[in-house]
């Protein structure tokens, strides 16, 4: 559409065009969020950058990544617990499973980065010590999940400056953004302010 046409277009058409473009952008951005961008950062470019497991800085990065994988495994298990609890309405269950899928993707990407750096990613524990006795209803499950997501945001915020490899910091920031979105959605669902402040640590 030329500028002249744009000027003469009915307002509704412009609004609809903008709406469609935004939807397309959001959909495409969502698809790229982790699988396209962060995996490439973690699993591809880091190969050339890694100095090897013998290097102290790389070894420290691996330890941080292993801790992150362990925490992501915990999140996957927690959502599994919630999904199997029988306490979630179908629509909520769908969201929980979606979020769990994100955490599984995080595990895969972080584990790939560890392997590229010459390390071994930790497996999930056989059993997690979750406060199962306190999960009595859907709100309890969502609050439990929100607590984990909030913790994950802080954990990544604390890890990002600790990485020696800046690309790992960048990838961790990508994961942090995803965890923050989970946290906001869960808080909203719980009737809490989804975005309680301008800054967060």
């Amino acid at each position, binding site marked *: 559409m030329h500028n002249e046409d744009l000027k003469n277009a009915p307002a509704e058409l412009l609004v609809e065009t903008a709406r469609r473009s935004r939807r397309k952008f959001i959909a495409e951005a969502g698809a790229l969020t982790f699988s396209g961008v962060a995996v490439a950062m973690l699993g591809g470019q880091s190969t050339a950058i890694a100095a090897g497991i013998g290097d102290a800085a790389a070894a420290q990065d691996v330890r*941080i990544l292993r801790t992150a994988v362990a*925490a992501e495994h915990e999140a996957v298990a927690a959502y599994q617990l919630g999904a199997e609890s029988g306490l979630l309405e179908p629509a*909520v269950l769908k*969201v929980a499973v979606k979020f769990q899928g994100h955490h599984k993707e995080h595990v895969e990407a972080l584990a790939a980065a560890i392997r590229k750096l010459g390390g071994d990613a930790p497996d999930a524990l056989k059993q997690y010590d979750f*406060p199962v006795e306190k999960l009595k209803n859907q709100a309890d499950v969502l609050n439990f999940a929100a607590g984990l997501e909030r*913790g994950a945001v802080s*954990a990544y915020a604390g890890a990002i400056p*600790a990485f020696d490899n800046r690309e790992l910091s960048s990838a961790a920031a990508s994961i942090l953004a995803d965890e923050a979105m989970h946290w906001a959605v869960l808080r909203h*669902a719980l009737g809490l302010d989804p975005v309680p402040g301008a800054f967060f640590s």
Partner: protein
Amino acid sequence: MTAAVAMCRLAKALLLLLVGCIAAAPSLFGGVVGGTDTGAAGQDIYGQCIGCHSPDRNRTGPLHCGLFGRVSGTVQGFEYSPAMREARVTWDAESLDWFLRSPLDAIPGTTMGFAGIRDDARRTQLIEWLETLVEDSPLCEGVR
């Protein structure tokens, strides 16, 4: 239907199901979401720890109940890094202040991948709150 639209609808469904039901819910990993009047600042800062830690349960990191006076690397049932096991630090206000400022520098080889709390006042507030995690704390119920 795009994924974004579907997500939006699901979020709305979540909201409709639960909005108004809950004013403030305690954390299910130790009451750390929300806050209390006593030690609220330290408790809030502890929010930075709950990705890996809990007062009363071993998770990615060890539990914190009974931290003061404990020797590093000695919580039963938790698998520590060799560095932490060998550090043999007794946790008190001074050692925690040293460690939490920059864990990775304090004990190289620790798996605690956290850059640290550089602000002295915030570190002190957190340590004061950690000191409250003793046997008779409600957050430590059932912890031996």
